[in-house]
């Protein structure tokens, strides 16, 4: 999410700046909420925001739960926990944790922070570093979701909502089918603020109801796949002594819903500075919305700038 010239012209980018959000992603959550109203529930108290950096979703959650609550005194029992691999600068009323959500130990830590209480809502906007190997990138993305889901099953109250970012690649129908074991309703939603050219969309999983005969139990020695064994069985499991042969797995197509309304800005369009609808926010100066990150390749960039890395010898 660098500040390229495209971003500068992007109206959601400007709008985020205007409203004090750290990233334009905030509008994705807001537009999802416009459609599904999961954040408008007066009983919403405890939420988890996974893969949260730089933190615009946490900001939205903090505003909904605290700032915009008419009963401002009613902060008892309210809790927002935000987790990311990257460090995050503090946000009011949000507990932040720097950790890998695929690590079972991280989930154990979040459970600890919640004590014995259940969460009302879990979201994950996680996206791995894209390598360019489409199948790997899609797999890792789905694993982030499975890790988020693992936590969700340990912490979400029955009937609660889980939302997560997905990339609608080749195995997305496999994921839909797996989610069907845990939620009564699964919808694939695309907010207007998410670019039409990207594969990004969000799964909105409503009415959490795990299978009766399956009891989620976090074990730090088990991977997420092992955690879900027995919950999402779609194939013959008898083969613990032989590498299973290839089978066609169950696939389901989730209902698609576009959200954000047709009057909202189109993230694929090029707007003119003098377009009416953007005039009020066009004037906003364009400093980076979010704090500068600390990329792992910082040293390499420095070396490159000083001419120490070359393409030729």
């Amino acid at each position, binding site marked *: 999410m660098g500040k390229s010239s495209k971003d500068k012209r992007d109206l959601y980018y400007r709008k985020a700046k205007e409203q004090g959000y750290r990233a334009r992603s905030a509008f994705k959550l807001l537009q999802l909420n416009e459609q599904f109203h999961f954040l408008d529930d007066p009983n919403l108290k405890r939420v988890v925001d996974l893969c949260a950096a730089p933190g615009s979703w946490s900001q939205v959650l903090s505003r909904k739960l605290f700032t915009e609550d008419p009963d401002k005194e009613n902060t008892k029992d309210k809790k927002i926990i935000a987790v990311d691999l990257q460090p995050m600068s503090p946000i009011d009323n949000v507990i932040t944790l720097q950790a890998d959500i695929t690590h079972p130990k991280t989930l154990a830590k979040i459970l600890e922070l919640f004590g014995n209480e259940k969460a009302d809502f879990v979201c994950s906007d996680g996206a791995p570093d894209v390598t360019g190997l489409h199948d790997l990138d899609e797999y890792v993305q789905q694993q982030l979701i499975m890790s988020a889901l693992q936590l969700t099953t340990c912490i979400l109250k029955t009937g609660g909502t889980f939302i997560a970012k997905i990339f609608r690649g080749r195995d997305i129908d496999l994921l839909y089918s797996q989610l069907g074991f845990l939620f009564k309703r699964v919808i694939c939603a695309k907010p207007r603020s998410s670019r039409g050219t990207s594969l990004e969309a969000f799964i909105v999983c409503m009415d959490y109801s795990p299978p009766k005969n399956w009891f989620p139990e976090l074990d730090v020695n088990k991977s997420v796949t092992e955690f879900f064994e027995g919950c999402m069985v779609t194939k013959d499991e008898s083969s613990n002594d032989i590498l299973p042969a290839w*089978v066609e797995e169950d696939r389901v197509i989730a209902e698609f819903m576009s959200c954000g309304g047709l009057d909202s800005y189109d993230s694929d369009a090029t707007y003119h500075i003098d377009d009416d609808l953007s005039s009020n926010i066009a004037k906003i100066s364009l400093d980076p919305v979010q704090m500068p990150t600390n990329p792992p390749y910082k*040293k390499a960039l420095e070396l490159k700038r000083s001419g120490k890395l070359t393409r030729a010898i």
Partner: protein
Amino acid sequence: MKEISHHGPGLCVKFYDEFVYAGYGPYIEQYNYKSGELINRCRVFRKNKVHGISISSNGYILAYGARSAAVCSLSDISDNVSILQEERLLAEWITCGEFSADGNKVFLLTCYNKVIISDIIGTIIGVKTIKGERSILYSGSIKPFSDELVYISAGTVMGGVLVWNLYEESIVHNLKGHEGSIFYSTISDNGKYLASCSDDRSIRLWDLKTGAELTIGWGHTARIWNLKFFQDDRKIISVSEDCTCRVWDIIVDEDGKSVLLQQSNIYEVHQIKNVWGVDVNSDHMIAVTSGNDGRLKITDLIQTSRTGKETGSFSIQKIQDELDIPFEKGEIIKGFQWFSFGLIAVTSFGKILKYGDVNKKWTLELEDKRFSSFVIVSGISSKNIAIFMNNKADILLLRFDAVGNLQLSSDYNIKGLKKSTNCLVSIFDRKSIILLLESPNPRDRLIFLKIDNYNLDILQEFRFNRPDNFVTTCMEAFEDYILLGSRFSTIGIFNLKGSDVDPYLIRKLTPGDTITSVSFVEIEKKLPIFSVTNRDGYFNFITIDLKRSSCKRVHFSVLHSNKVSKGFLEGAYIDDKNQYITYGFKSSLFYMYNETNCYEIMSEPCGGAHRQWNLFPDGRGFVLVYIKASDLHYRKIREPRFPAVLKNGLHGREIRDISILKSQPYKNGYLFCTASEDTTVRLSHFDQDTGDITNYWLQRKHVSGLQRCKFINHHLMISCSAREELFLWDIDQDSSSRPYISTRATLPTSSDIPDLRIMDFDVKFLLNSDSFLLATVYSDSVIKVWSFDEATNKFALLIEGRYETCCLLNVKLESVAKQLYLITTPTDGHVVVYNITDYIPYELADNFQFLLENFNECKTLPLPNYITKFLVHQSGIKTFCTDSESLPRTIKIFTGGDDNAIAMNILKVDADSLGIISSSSSFIEDAASSTITSISLFDKNRKLMMTSVDQLVKVWDVTGDDLVPIDKRYTTIADTGSLDVVTLEDSSTLSLIGGVGISLWKLAF
């Protein structure tokens, strides 16, 4: 529906015996790396790609990728088209697979740090893990030292490499130092080292015993994907997102205490992005790499030292010592010419020296003081003739025999030039050569001397007037004509048989300044074709009708126009495999580049273009001679010992659009073009039986990622992209050697918004003409209609307007009932219809297929309001196609959306009112599980083919009121985004499907 061929990313490569095994999509391809021959292509997985290959000492091969794994014997891979029955499916992604030391067991490391041990037939023997370390891995490797000792190295997403002992299930080291995800780690055979790389772009070498970080290698400018120890663990090769592979020497100092990783060579091996796989054959010292561009590349790691005779360099001192004659103070080499016997050079004091390439000795041939202060050396290597000229128009010609003995010398003084500063030579015919003498004085005439190449007599002299602004830079002789390249991008043509004293001139042929080469290529339709290069990187192929030309008018046309990707272009030629080879300079490197298949042949760090240099053909290849730091260097460039590529590949990034030139077949297949995210357009050919792809040209005129490309008639093509770029291309197919493609016109841009994208276009031709009406739609909701005039090659804007503010994705021009409709689909899910009949200076011909001029005044009109719009999809309509022929007064509109749906919509034109009645007749909301990216009608508009991002290809019957599915296949092309269909004479259908790669399908129903 059957897949005939697949071209896409190659993820892994392995040398074994005389073969290279490559994981190529769901296939393993086996090549003989000595002959380059493809031995077999065997399908190993149904949907997954082969990410890794391991071969056991007893002849078994293990392939793994995503959650699939398969084991079979090597002969199974050589002999079968498929071994799908061996495919196994695990619950987790397989990060690495390896055979045990004795070859009887298989280890599979999953991305959750678990190792499954099985026997060859898949019986599970054991499962091993590390307690509490079950987070996701991006990489890992398995090192079986013996049957008892196996190490696992696992790369986590948070900078750590976990080394663990498989059978003891205990952690050996947790190596910390890297930042970001670890993308690869590997242990050396001798057990001394572990090498790793991460998102931080460094390579780290660790002491496997102590776990200490020994050294860091910086160099790659992007992420590193793979590492390999070779040559007895003394070297490492790395491959990266920066398209290079690099060799690192592990340098251990004498007391064995400190270790250094020193980058010893860099090879640019793949295009645009990502080299994934690498292996080295240490016996032959060659590397094989595979990349996102689908290329399998062989790199000679000892290209310049294979025979020990490839290079040489001499200091003045060295030459002097060897000759044992004193040189003057400051005496230097001023010029040289290479021959098959060696080198002839002249010093600044007129010493003409010979270096014998066989006896490796320098001798003084003769001394001629006339050539001491100023001298130009040239010659014809194949005729063993060297030529020297000074600034007083004295010329000396020397002829040698094949082994370098001087046979004859001849000298002349040419009258009529005040000064001579330029001398060029070229073969004229079998018996003679032609010499050009040029003066710095623009009023002096240009003098050509025709010289007998045996007795060195001047046979004839020609004098021509020198045109204004003409400074000769290169020369080519063709029949009775001499073609001179000049600065200011000018070519002068001199007719030696004619009576003209003025040349014919072609001015401003390409952008840029100096023409660096003009060379005859072939005869097409009785006319010669020349390749012309410009130092600023542009090159053209032009055909000239010399007989019809005169000083007043040159009859020529540009068949091909393009430019090189970077650097200076000094020359080019067609090699014996019909490939176009360019050469020149890239910063301090001299390079030779295979332009047809887009790879570097060689490069030499010679210091840059300002050096004194020349490239000489010597019968066995080329010899580059240059002077650097006053030393004389030569480098021989020979046919590579091993084939440079095993497979050519296509684009480095996603293919956004494909168009087949359907009007006529070309060499047992069709020409097609592809528009890619990598900003290039390619013109290629596919063979309809084998599916093999031949690359012809890679066009670099666009500077932004492509949106669309489409053949609009039998020789014109349009491509468009972001930054408001739209080009009209002309394809010439008359030559039997290769097609040519040139830019014919550029659409004017309208705004100062740099990122305004042209999303789509459509055309309608004038009857019997190359003039057409063009509709373009933009990302700022603007719609424009233009007329293109074939005579002037200009676009004129006829209609301009804006729909709303949302982005427009597609446009079509359709005519029914003598009305012309512009149909567009914005991101808001609507189909929007405009009637533009009265807004264009044309009327429709009787069959509605063409336009007729009706001589209205041409001026820009505002776009009228749309006559109808209707909502079909929830969000953007990504793709649509129309059919106005199947039903009278009706346009069928097929749409595919971001919402997983496809629809058939009917537009009926009311006969009297010409009003439109629209309806959606069929809507399939779950046509795919993700975005529909491309649809196309075929079989006389009776069937519809569709692709979606979930990698499905579906075919629908569209003859009824409902869309009826008839076939569905999985494609291994990721990011499936484009397709085109062609129906053959035998009424079978071929389809190209593009995304990250391309595949050819044959359809028969």
